[in-house]
């Protein structure tokens, strides 16, 4: 496979290298011809043409076959330094040489074509498989809430069933949960397609990060009923010039991800800090952490942990990464030694120290 990578060379380079090999070999043979005889030279040149056939495309190889045949004829077949061939055996040898060299070139070309086709097919299969898993998880994520809504409404509408007031209320709240789940998936898909299309251009404005975190936590208060979210505002953090909307989505996705993948009554901590050239946001939990062999893939689009039981499309964290990078920042994930996962988002930004209001 490594040898094949030479085909990535530009066509000009392929021509140059293959012809250079022939010329160098010919010069070497020129000094050895008195020892090995001019017929052995043909075999040596043939060997170089075969090597070229392994390495390069068909046209450079055909050219090197032609050139080497001419060189052999001109410099080695007596009478030398003419294209004239003295005996019928040498004439036959010359013809055979050219045919064998060409066959060599064509055969290795054919083999490579077949290999390429196989590889393309394998890649296509892989793409189809990825597409299928994606479609499965997506349709599951979209259909489950839709099925819930339709089913619940059917039950409520059906006059025959004797629905207790309590059950009716429960069905209504199921519809509510399903709708917000559906909404979240659509938001994620839209964000992803915006990222994909390169439409995410940060609109920077001064933000109070403490306020942004409080807002994100507040937005998730229903989902966080069974969890504890701790956030101690960092009072001395200056205003940061950032895209508040993107940041809000990053925080939302990180906190929601932690809520989804940690057992009930886990604690999620959010800590803000300031680095030399930007702000640092840490979100960590005391759950199980991530499997070490999968930690590198969690930010990949549509990637879901192998043993994950809870739903999800594998979009949330890749959006976090995409949005962080759109603002020139990055996101890291590490496991905490005593259990739990820690996400660190670093975003470069301008700070405002305009807090002196006594001079008004």
């Amino acid at each position: 496979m490594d040898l094949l990578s030479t085909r990535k060379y530009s066509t000009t380079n392929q021509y140059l290298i293959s012809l250079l090999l022939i010329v160098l070999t010919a010069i070497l043979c020129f000094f050895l011809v008195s020892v090995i005889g001019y017929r052995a030279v043909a075999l040596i040149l043939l060997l170089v043409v075969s090597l070229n056939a392994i390495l390069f495309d068909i046209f450079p190889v055909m050219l090197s076959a032609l050139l080497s045949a001419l060189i052999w004829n001109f410099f080695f077949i007596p009478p030398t330094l003419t294209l004239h061939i003295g005996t019928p055996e040498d004439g036959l040898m010359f013809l055979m040489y050219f045919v064998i060299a060409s066959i060599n070139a064509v055969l290795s070309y054919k083999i490579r074509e077949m290999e390429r086709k196989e590889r393309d097919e394998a890649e296509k299969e892989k793409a189809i498989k990825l597409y299928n898993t994606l479609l499965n998880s997506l349709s599951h994520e979209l259909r489950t809430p839709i099925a819930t809504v339709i089913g619940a409404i059917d039950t409520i509408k059906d006059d025959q069933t004797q629905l207790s007031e309590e059950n009716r209320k429960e069905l209504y709240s199921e519809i509510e949960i399903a709708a917000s789940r559906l909404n979240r998936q659509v938001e994620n898909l839209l964000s992803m397609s915006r990222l994909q299309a390169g439409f995410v251009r940060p609109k920077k404005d001064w933000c109070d990060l403490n306020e942004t975190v409080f807002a994100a936590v507040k937005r998730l208060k229903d989902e966080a009923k069974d969890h504890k979210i701790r956030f101690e505002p960092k009072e001395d953090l200056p205003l940061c010039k950032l895209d508040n909307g993107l940041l809000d989505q990053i925080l939302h996705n990180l906190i929601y991800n932690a809520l989804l993948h940690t057992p009930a009554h886990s604690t999620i901590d959010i800590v803000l800090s300031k680095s030399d050239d930007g702000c640092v946001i840490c979100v960590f939990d005391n759950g199980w952490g991530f499997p070490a062999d999968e930690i590198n893939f969690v930010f990949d689009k549509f990637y879901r942990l192998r043993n994950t039981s809870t739903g999800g499309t594998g979009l949330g964290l890749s959006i976090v990464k995409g949005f962080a990078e759109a603002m020139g920042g990055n996101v890291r994930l590490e496991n905490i030694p005593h259990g739990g996962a820690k996400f660190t988002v670093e975003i470069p930004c301008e700070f405002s120290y305009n807090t002196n209001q006594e001079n008004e």
Partner: protein
Amino acid sequence: MNNAEILIIDDEPQIRKLLQINLESNGYKVTQASTGEHGLSLSASHPPDLILLDIGLPGKDGHQILKELREWYNKPIIVLSVRDNETDIVSALDNGATDYLTKPFRTGELLARIRSSIRRSENAENNSTVVCGDLEIDLIARVVKKMGDTIKLTSTEYNLLALFAKNGGKVLTHQFILKEIWGYSFQTETQYLRVFVGSLRKKIEENPNNPQHIITESGVGYRFE
């Protein structure tokens, strides 16, 4: 009792139906238009008390309709928009929309916005004292009291609070507030606004981290309640 008339301008029949059922069961009279042009002619022939206007309309879009309506219609217009489009919302508010809601919205929220918009347009006369929960703002004496105790505010803080109080319940865009308090040339200096809102919250809010009076409308502005 509210028997106010509301005109819905939205191209989605399902949304119109939902709004109609909701509003009618809350005692409002409802008329509907599926295009902006139809909405314009309906409101001209029979002016409603409030208009719910969708921004994403086919043909003439909501922004255009809003501008044309505002040439003569001075009752509340609440704009409906999709999320994640703050520029749309800000420009609608700056073009005279009274309030906005992002789809999907909750019915309770919609009804509250409608009530407060109508109330504001009816009590257009200036009250000299604004009472809001535990806050009392005397706009003539320039005195602010929280649970009966006078709060000391700097003059900019007071001007900001007074602007909020005069526009209670209404979303004020960053640009609008900056222009009103600091002047035209400060319209992009949002950091001033952040700093003063922060210090004002510390003085008037019970818990500045979970504000009840000065509510942030992310990417758009603030609302005083």
